[in-house]
């Protein structure tokens, strides 16, 4: 039965009720609509315009998108950025989330001492600014300083060292791993919270049935936190296809060498603001943002309508 409106509220004069709602909802709805939803719609609409040298706008329909996807000047960097972004996301899914889940599994072992300390330390990098993290790793991996090379030498792997951030073959994956290093705390925390939610009695029952810690994790805990794993996947997806700060602060807007670390966020920035010789182009920028919006929208819809429906939530 739907909860009924309280008599007090139901018997309020209509004008007073409206005033009350305006007071409570007004500020939030106004700011949110004006500075979040409206700009999004305005950006999408702007993507169907173009500007001439005098700055006058004219409607061009989907022409910007056609240019973006087919004109070699635009499409080459666009597809490069999109593919790189996909790799960036794949590294997170393959490395960040499994490590986060494993750490959460270890932390949730009953009777583990110092878990608060471990949790605090492992989550620390997540709190830092991406700019700071990017720069710190930039220094650490720099052959000029030689810290990494020295560290590798002490474990006998000195020959493995290479200026990873500087090579076009490794820059993107290295940046992705830096991002993984920073954000592994988020899947860890979310999974950890979900694991805490599993009743201790269920784990005891499994132990009575003769399962060891690893099997309990694999057969009992993991299936029960699948919805949370779905959630971290979509959070990772949205975060990755919207990423910018790390690559911009480590590699600048050109995301070099040779655009090898260029992702949609940096490509959007260059298109919108211009960089060095390239002039800023707001309408093409809006078109790139619109494409990013639809990529994220597809991901979110896929999550909401396919993944989330298939994963059962258990009430304990």
């Amino acid at each position, binding site marked *: *039965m739907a909860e*009924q409106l*309280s*008599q*007090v509220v*139901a*018997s309020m004069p209509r004008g007073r009720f409206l005033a009350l709602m305006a007071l409570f909802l007004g500020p939030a709805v106004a700011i949110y609509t004006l500075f979040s939803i409206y700009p999004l719609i305005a950006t999408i609409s702007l993507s169907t315009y173009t500007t001439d040298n005098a700055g006058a706008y004219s409607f061009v329909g989907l022409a910007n998108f056609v240019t973006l996807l087919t004109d070699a000047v635009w499409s080459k960097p666009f597809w490069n950025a999109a593919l790189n972004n996909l790799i960036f996301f794949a590294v997170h899914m393959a490395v960040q989330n499994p490590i986060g889940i494993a750490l959460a599994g270890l932390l949730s072992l009953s009777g583990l001492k110092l878990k608060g300390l471990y949790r605090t330390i492992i989550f620390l990098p997540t709190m830092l600014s991406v700019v700071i993290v990017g720069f710190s790793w930039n220094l650490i991996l720099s052959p000029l300083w030689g810290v990494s090379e020295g560290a590798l030498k002490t474990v006998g792997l000195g020959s493995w060292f290479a200026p990873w951030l500087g090579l076009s073959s490794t820059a993107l994956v290295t940046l992705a791993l830096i991002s993984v290093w920073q954000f592994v705390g988020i899947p860890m925390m979310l999974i950890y919270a979900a694991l805490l939610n599993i009743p201790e009695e269920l784990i005891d029952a499994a132990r009575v049935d003769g399962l060891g810690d690893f099997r309990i994790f694999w057969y009992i805990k993991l299936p029960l936190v699948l919805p949370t794993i779905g959630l971290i996947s979509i959070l990772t997806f949205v975060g990755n296809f919207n990423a910018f700060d790390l690559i911009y602060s480590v590699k600048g807007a050109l995301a070099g060498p040779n655009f090898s670390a260029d992702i949609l966020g940096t490509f959007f920035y260059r298109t919108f603001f211009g960089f060095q010789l390239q002039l800023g182009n707001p309408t093409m920028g809006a078109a790139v943002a619109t494409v990013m919006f639809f990529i994220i929208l597809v991901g979110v819809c896929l999550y909401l309508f396919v993944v989330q429906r298939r994963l059962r939530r258990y009430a304990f």
Partner: protein
Amino acid sequence: MATLSIKNLAKHYGETRVLSGIELAVEDGEFVVLVGPSGCGKSTLLRMIAGLDAPTLGDISIGDRMVNGLAPAERKIAMVFQSYALYPHMNVRKNMTFGLKFTGVERQEMDRRVAEAARMLQLEPLLERQPRDLSGGQRQRVAIGRAIVREPDVFLFDEPLSNLDAALRVSTRVEIARLHRLLRATMIYVTHDQIEAMTLADRIVVMNQGRIEQVGKPLDLYYTPANLFVAGFIGSPAMNFFKSKVERIADGRAHIAGPAVETFVAPASAALGQGASVTIGVRPEHLDIGAPGAFAAKGTVELVERLGESSFAYIRRADEQMMVAEVRGRQTPSAGDTLSLGADLADVHLFDEAGRRIEVATA
């Protein structure tokens, strides 16, 4: 203090009729308990009296004032909630005075009322404490104190004891009864616990499926339940029922028998005509072993629960149904015994096919 009157009250949620045809008149200073199984609408009725829910139909008056459409605060009521609903971030004193701030009570008057309520409920040492530092019983007293300082015309209690443990429930029950004597206030009290209802009420309102089944003094409900529902609801363990038929009328006496009833002879009346279907009801405490009275039944003991002062024998009857008999004293039957049970005419209740009580002359 004031009377309360409810006329033809109904509450519908869409198609669902939660309450219908509620008529009730409560006298000034009366303690009325609304009792019934969960979902019978008693809490909804209380919330409508409070003004928290709106009735679909009907009128509610407090004193000679119709209160339909008035906000709770304008009705001069105070309510004690099942969860106590103490404001967790205010100490006891603030909890009691918070509501008074909005009704224009003077500071001095506020202090006087709080002091008086605190004295009445022995809350004086707790006034500066936070709710989280109080025990369940203390919280309950604060909730009652918060109602008292409002000096309402009508007190409303919504299952106030159900969150307390058994021992506290008894002592708080006594406390509430004492308070009622002291304040001489009109009180409406909702519970699903018939012992609370029996011990506290001047009058009990038994509700079932959105209707009032019977209104009466506690012992009246016990001795003369108006229908099968009330007969079965009041009393624990519940009354035993026997489906039976009037077999013949002879010498102005009706001979009634059924699959599980050996004999039952009652003075004939209009309702007890030849061939009439009736239900016989006998309370477990009125069934005596081996002492056949006007009523006699037989069965085999399956289980005996020994409580000390008395025992309950669960007996399988001839119609395969169970009946319960209360046995006093040290001698208790054992499982497997076959027993003959009897009851006096005065202790036997008769109900017609529609479940309504049939009055039987006992003289």
